[in-house]
């Protein structure tokens, strides 16, 4: 814990020279003293693990401890650590009877090793290594276990050669020291760093059975290590027995965190080395030096392999955990957006989908055969879904479809789905993936809004028809009156002594024609009065305009408005509901006539034109010579009215009708007087165009 305090203290220290006093904080000083104490302990352990007559230990902990301390602190704290370790080193060495010059040289080589290792690791990683990362571990193995011991061992062996204290040959010293320090670094640095990284708090966290398992594992490792390394074995079994702890170590690697692995490895190393020192265990050799060499190599190979495995598994766990977190975030986002994902595997012809659920951590994934899924699509939408699938498979590769799914209770759910086709490397369709959005709420609202809009439009239409009732009655009465008179005239003729059959035939012909005319009027009126379903279909606007003018003929007549009609030829059909478009036209014409009612009859003029609107649109323009509009925006507000009669909904409803058709209704002032209303409607789909409107571009003058 003190070490971690050092790390914290060091990390906070500013770089400028004025901050030097901050280096000597309690944390830093106590941390340094703790390192010195650990160093002394390390020397004692190292001496205990030293084979006579070689001056070098089998496992020399002090260097590894300094390296661990350097890695735990910021470089600017390093001088303090080294300065504190120096007296501890000197005291220990002199106490052990090492000559002063030799002790000084060893300090230099030990510190050099720790500094080389720490500097290289920081240089390559930029931070303390993590032992659950393969890259970090590789850097640690290269810099701390291989490069630093190799380089410092040259120095160390040279110092011994110079001073000549217990000199047994340069390369032998180099080799023994290299293995000793490499093993110490490999065993102790991960242990120290991992325990400082994770802290002791982790020991008390987690599930009880997991802690029990770890305790059982450690106990088993101790027992097996004692049985294997602390007892003498027959030469035949010795070579095999050294691998006995491996299953337990693998268990640690697979089931536990790196801290438990490091601890297990240290226990095995300790028992193995002490066993060799006592002349027991499977590492039997001609000399203790060879035995020490064997145990060192065994441990280095075993430990580095285990650490690599730990790192690989750690990365796998991290990747899994990241994937799980992403999945949870995705699920949360999908749930919040009322979305889900799906996948259709062509090999199995099954469809899996995941339902994002807000507020729940678990995803619901379901898989059904595609055919079964299709049976749940609403019968009216099935063809559309099949078409979208066929189009995606035929080449577009992706597509979007909106459909209803019917659940077992018969309730419908609106779904908007977007999919993408994935091909294998030969270009064959392999599967389709996609997302879907539950649009039931939006659809319901849209439906309600549409119903309201249609109801309002209907009421407005009824009100308009009320206003037009007089003119409409005239329109209907004309043919009826003629029929009656013709019929009565025919009766009189037939009763005459010499009936004129030619006259009678003409009368009957007129009756038929007038009856047809009256029928047409009734047919048109019926459509306007009926509260029918709105049916958006390809519609020829010119035909629609003519029908409206036929209905309003009497009205225009009474209003004494001179009407000029100019309909463009070859207009594309628009996608519209006939009755609603007629309602808008009727309303605009009535408004124009009413606006002109105060003018002198010869001044009352109305122009009705149809023309291409550009970008595949059609414009209908209704222009009058009235007094014009003061506020071109306010007139579309509901309940805005300049008339003494009417509720002022006509234009608001007209605009909403045109907007619902994807078009626009705009008003503008004319110069010097009058107003223009322009309806812009989008054309119907290309397939629905059929023959273009055959209206001649003639200047029809209706009245």
């Amino acid at each position, binding site marked *: 814990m003190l070490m971690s305090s050092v790390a914290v203290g060091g990390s906070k220290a500013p770089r400028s020279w004025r901050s030097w006093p901050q280096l000597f904080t309690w944390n830093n000083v106590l941390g340094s003293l703790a390192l010195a104490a650990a160093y002394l302990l390390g020397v004692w352990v190292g001496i205990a693990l030293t084979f006579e007559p070689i001056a070098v230990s089998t496992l020399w902990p002090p260097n590894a401890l300094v390296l661990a301390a350097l890695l735990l602190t910021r470089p600017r704290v390093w001088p303090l650590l080294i300065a504190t370790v120096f007296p501890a080193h000197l005291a220990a060495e002199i106490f052990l009877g090492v000559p002063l010059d030799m002790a000084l040289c060893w300090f230099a080589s030990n510190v050099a090793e720790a500094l080389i290792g720490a500097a290289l690791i920081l240089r390559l990683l930029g931070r303390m290594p993590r032992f659950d990362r393969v890259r970090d571990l590789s850097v640690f193995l290269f810099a701390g276990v291989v490069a630093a011991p190799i380089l410092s061992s040259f120095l160390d062996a040279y110092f011994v050669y110079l001073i000549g204290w217990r000199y047994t040959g340069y390369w032998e010293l180099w080799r023994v020291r290299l293995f000793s320090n490499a093993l110490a670094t490999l065993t102790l640095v991960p242990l120290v760093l991992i325990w400082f990284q994770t802290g002791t708090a982790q020991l008390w966290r987690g599930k009880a059975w997991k802690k029990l398992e770890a305790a059982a594992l450690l106990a088993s490792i101790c027992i097996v290590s004692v049985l294997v390394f602390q007892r003498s074995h027959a030469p035949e079994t010795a070579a095999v027995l050294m691998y006995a702890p491996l299953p337990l170590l693998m268990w640690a690697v697979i089931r536990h965190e790196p801290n438990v692995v490091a601890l297990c490895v240290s226990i095995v190393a300790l028992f193995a080395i002490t066993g060799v020192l006592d002349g027991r265990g499977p590492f039997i050799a001609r000399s203790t030096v060879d035995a020490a060499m064997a145990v060192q190599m065994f441990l280095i190979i075993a430990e580095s392999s285990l650490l690599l495995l730990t790192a690989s598994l750690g990365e796998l766990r991290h990747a899994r955990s990241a994937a799980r977190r992403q999945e949870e975030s995705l699920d949360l986002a999908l749930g919040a957006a009322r979305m889900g994902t799906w996948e259709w595997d062509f090999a199995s012809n099954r469809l899996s989908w995941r339902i994002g659920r807000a507020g729940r951590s678990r995803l619901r994934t379901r898989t059904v055969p595609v055919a079964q899924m299709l049976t749940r699509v609403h019968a009216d939408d099935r063809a559309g879904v099949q078409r979208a699938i066929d189009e995606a498979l035929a080449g577009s590769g992706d597509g979007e479809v909106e459909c209803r799914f019917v659940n077992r209770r018969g309730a419908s759910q609106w779904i908007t789905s977007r999919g993408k086709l994935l091909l294998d490397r030969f270009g064959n369709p392999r599967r389709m993936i996609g997302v879907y959005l539950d649009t039931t709420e939006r659809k319901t609202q849209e439906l309600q809004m549409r119903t309201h809009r249609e109801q309002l439009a209907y009421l407005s239409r009824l009100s308009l028809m009320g206003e037009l009732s007089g003119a409409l009655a005239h329109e209907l009465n004309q043919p009826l009156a003629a029929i*009656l008179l013709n019929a009565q005239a025919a009766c009189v003729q037939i009763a005459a002594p010499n009936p004129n059959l030619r006259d009678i035939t003409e009368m009957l012909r007129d009756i038929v024609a007038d009856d047809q005319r009256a029928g047409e009027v009734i047919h048109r009126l019926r459509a306007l009065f009926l509260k029918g379903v709105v049916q958006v279909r390809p519609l020829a606007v010119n035909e629609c305009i003519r029908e409206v003018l036929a209905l309003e003929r009497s009205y225009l007549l009474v209003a004494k408005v001179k009407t000029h009609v100019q309909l463009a030829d070859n207009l594309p059909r628009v996608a519209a509901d006939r009755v609603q478009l007629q309602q808008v036209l009727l309303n605009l014409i009535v408004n124009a006539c009413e606006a002109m009612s105060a003018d002198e009859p010869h001044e009352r003029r109305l122009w009705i034109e149809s023309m291409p609107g550009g970008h595949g649109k059609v414009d209908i323009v209704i222009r009058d010579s009235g007094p014009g509009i003061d506020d071109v925006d306010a007139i579309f507000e509901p309940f805005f009215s300049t008339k003494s009669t009417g509720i002022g909904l006509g234009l608001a409803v007209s605009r909403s009708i045109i907007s619902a058709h994807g078009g626009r209704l705009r008003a503008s002032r004319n110069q010097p007087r009058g107003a223009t209303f322009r309806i812009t409607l989008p054309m119907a789909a290309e397939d629905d165009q059929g023959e273009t409107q055959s209206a001649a571009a003639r200047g029809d003058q209706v009245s």
Partner: protein
Amino acid sequence: MSAAQGPNRPLRVAVVDDEPTMRRSFARLLRSTGYEASVYSSGREFLDACQSKPPDCAFIDWQMPGLSGVEVIEHLRRRGIGIPVAMLAAIDDAEVRRTCTALGTHCFLVKPADGVALLNAIESMVSSGSVSSDALAPATNGVAAPIRK
């Protein structure tokens, strides 16, 4: 009223209506029942004709382009032509009835008007004495019996 008209000549009835079928059918009925019918498609045309040869009575449509029925009557009265006039309208409107009464219209008929009602209106105009005495109203002779109940 022209002095040139002889005795017992058929009664001349004018029909002023912009609607061709209405003019045609009304004229047929009149001719079938022994009247002399003259038809006009506008008020202006009728007024011009009245200058030289005014009819004995006239049926005028209320709603017409150009001059309306009311305006035609006003013009007639202004010119001193006092023939009896029946007004034909598509709607039975109290306001229109009042206007017609004020202008001295003989009667007000709503379309579709029954042929019998039209013939009765003629008879009524004749019997009121405002029609020239030398003219004959043949409908009263039973020619129109097939359509009378």
